[in-house]
């Protein structure tokens, strides 16, 4: 734990995180699932409206839903912990012990950003200096409160209570609340988030965070610390091979390991076509025999091709950089067998229907 935090402190993850390629990978890994994003939440506005619509209207609505979903999936950034930077503005020995407590002075001029607001402290010995980040946050919350953020940290984030929350697998709730309560450059943000991610990694409950805005940062965290084995195994088990490949690529990227980038391009072509089809076609697109066959098996020929390439890539990872080599090879073996069977079934069906 301590080792991990030290890495966050001394090496800034922000440039890597903001990097376009990383962002693309993270977004892809997150997997946009409309059902999960727009699921019923325990809040007062939870209405469902039913409407009669034409096909065109439905397609438009689906498009809108996709854009909204992308907005909702915006990831909280991972940046370095901000160091306290107090500048002494003036020092006056004549003012020593002018009062028995310090004064915190805030400039409440309208239209100033929270981070740009001038907040200064007159210490009891008469020195005037800028406030440290902790104080700034408290004062900002007092004068310009953010909704749902509390002046004192919620007790939920204390060690014991947090453990309880995590044992109940309320990861998303904890992370959401953490995003509200803390800024990404705060020490606490990193402490809590890394605790949650490690707990998820231990319990292997990755699916809870899938298709939420926290899945990207979690993968980033795990990839940064080279702990992606369980995540990869989970992805293989759930048949998200492309995602597994992307996670491995992300790990290579972050840790400066050389690899063949051709696989990514291959994946991209496939996924982009797949995604566009999903978005535009919806369910009303004409159904051919081909599609019907694919649906019965669950996969198309192209997908089998992609699977082969990805499996090769994952095999290479397993041999070179994996930590849990035995589990990963076992999992891969099982997957391969299952996939082989499916492939044979599809070929049989195609032959029976006379599709070449």
């Amino acid at each position, binding site marked *: 734990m301590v080792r991990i935090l030290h890495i966050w402190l001394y090496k800034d993850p922000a440039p890597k995180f903001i990097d376009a390629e990383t962002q693309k990978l993270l977004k892809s890994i997150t997997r946009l699932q409309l059902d999960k994003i727009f699921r019923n939440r325990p809040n007062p506005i939870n209405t469902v409206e039913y409407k009669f619509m034409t096909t065109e209207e439905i397609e438009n609505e689906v498009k809108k839903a996709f854009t909204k979903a992308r907005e909702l999936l915006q990831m909280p950034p991972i940046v370095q912990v901000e160091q306290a930077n107090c500048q002494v503005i003036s020092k006056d020995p004549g003012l020593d012990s002018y009062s028995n407590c*310090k004064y915190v002075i805030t*400039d409440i001029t*309208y239209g100033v950003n929270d981070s740009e607001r001038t907040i200064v402290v007159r210490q009891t010995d008469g020195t005037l200096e800028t406030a440290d980040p902790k104080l700034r946050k408290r004062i900002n919350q007092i004068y310009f409160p953010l909704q749902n953020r509390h002046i004192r940290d919620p007790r939920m984030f204390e060690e014991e209570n947090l453990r309880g929350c995590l044992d109940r697998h309320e990861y998303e709730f904890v992370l959401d609340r953490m995003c509200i309560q803390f800024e990404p450059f705060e020490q606490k943000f990193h402490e809590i988030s890394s605790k949650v991610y490690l707990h998820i990694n231990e319990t292997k409950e990755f699916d809870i965070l899938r298709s939420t805005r926290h899945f990207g940062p979690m993968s980033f965290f795990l990839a940064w610390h080279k702990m992606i084995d369980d995540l990869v195994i989970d992805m293989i088990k759930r048949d998200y091979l492309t995602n597994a490949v992307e996670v491995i690529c992300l790990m290579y990227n972050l840790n400066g390991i050389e690899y063949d980038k051709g696989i990514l391009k291959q994946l991209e072509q496939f996924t982009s076509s797949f995604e566009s089809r999903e978005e535009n076609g919806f369910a009303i697109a004409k159904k051919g025999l081909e599609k019907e066959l694919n649906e019965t098996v669950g996969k198309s020929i192209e997908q089998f091709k992609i699977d082969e390439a990805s499996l090769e890539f994952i095999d290479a990872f397993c041999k070179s950089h994996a930590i849990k080599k035995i589990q990963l090879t076992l999992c891969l073996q099982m997957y391969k067998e299952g996939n082989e069977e499916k492939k044979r079934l599809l070929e049989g069906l195609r032959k029976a229907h006379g599709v070449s």
Partner: protein
Amino acid sequence: MANFAKLSRISVPSRNPKIPVSPYAPINLPPASGIGKYWRLSAKAIRLARHGCTNRPFYHVVVMERRKNQHQPVIEQVGTYDPMPNEHDEKLLSFNFERIRFWIGKGAHISQPVAELLGISGFYPIHPRTYMNAWRNRQKAAEVETKVTE
């Protein structure tokens, strides 16, 4: 009946129903910004207006005509001052420096307590009274120390 309707319309402040009103918001106090009437050439002052309640002072830094009572409607509120130290042993003080500059530019006077606070905040020169308090406190501390050593 008509009279009653007229009266009630005046006494009930119109509030935007979309903006939630804090349950602690003052009911019978005039609003903090902008309804005080004033003459263009009258003497204005930046000074403290005591709010809060018995044994719990809380001050607004306000701009108003010098001759007016502190609980009259103000021209503008430009800050707050909480003289009771909080749990972190701090006294919270806030100024809208942009507006204070504006009013000083218009020639507004500044009362002594506000001048002291502005001095402490580093906007104004430090008031001699602050220095006086400082050295008196230091003297007292020194006396206590000598007594303890004796």
